[in-house]
């Protein structure tokens, strides 16, 4: 093969290889940046912390989560809180565990509502949509 031609071919190949690597790294960075996985992990963790806190106080209480969660579906059961979007693949669902005292139960489903409330009523901890004006007049 002509030496000049092969040099040009190598040069083209090298440029393509560098572009491929750069594209791959930018793709990885963009996929991490566009993902809301961090938000999901933090919100699900907050839910588990709220359950533990409510289990640790005497009497009844209700607390509102101070963030718009209208994109997500929450499922609360006796040991876990699950968070996902409609039509999510199982790998994208976030699940957090907690351990309640014996006799306590956690239940409830909240589908794509903006305001999430968690209420302790006796020995049951429920997740539900906040009622209108539920916290009006409170400090």
């Amino acid at each position: 093969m002509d030496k000049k031609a092969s040099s040009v071919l190598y040069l083209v190949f090298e440029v393509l290889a560098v572009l491929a690597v750069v594209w791959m790294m930018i793709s990885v960075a963009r996929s991490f940046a566009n993902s809301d996985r961090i938000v999901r992990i933090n919100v699900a963790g907050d839910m588990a912390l709220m359950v533990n806190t409510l289990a640790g106080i005497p009497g009844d209480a209700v607390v509102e989560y101070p963030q718009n969660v209208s994109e997500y579906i929450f499922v609360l059961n006796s040991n876990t809180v699950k968070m996902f979007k409609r039509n999510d693949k199982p790998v994208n669902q976030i699940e957090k565990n907690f351990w309640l005292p014996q006799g306590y139960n956690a239940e409830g489903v909240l589908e794509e509502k903006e305001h999430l409330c968690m209420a302790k009523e006796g020995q049951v901890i429920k997740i539900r949509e906040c009622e209108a004006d539920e916290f009006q007049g409170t400090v």
Partner: protein
Amino acid sequence: MNSKGQFDLARKSIYWMIASVVITMVVIFFVMIIASYQSNLTALPPELLSGLVSLRFTQNTHCFAYQDTVTGKVYPGVIDLAKFNTERMRQCYSVPEEGGYRELNFRLVLVNSKIELVTNDYYHVDKLTTSQKVLVWNGVNFIEDTLQINTQVDI
């Protein structure tokens, strides 16, 4: 191809063999950096989780908090000595038998009363220790004591 051309070809081949390995390692390292950054953003301080979980020990009547049997009033921060036993501890906080060592486990010590309770998967690997002044109801009167909460985080 003449010998110089063959030499060039061989040189380039060796170069790309080494470069491809280095580039692969750089890409993998880059992905690990991003994953590590993500896990730093979602990390939960064990002190926070331990503090919130251990609230129940002194605040919840289904754990050790004293409740007046006549009025029904709950006294948060007051421990009922009659409840401060292993069976109550199991009812108050239990982790699964399988893999329970990955969850928080606790060792509670009433210092003056010299009573110690542990959760079901506690292996004496304390990572956090907090102490708080409490009152203890011994059935007759309230006495001052110190509740030491030792927390075993994921081992």
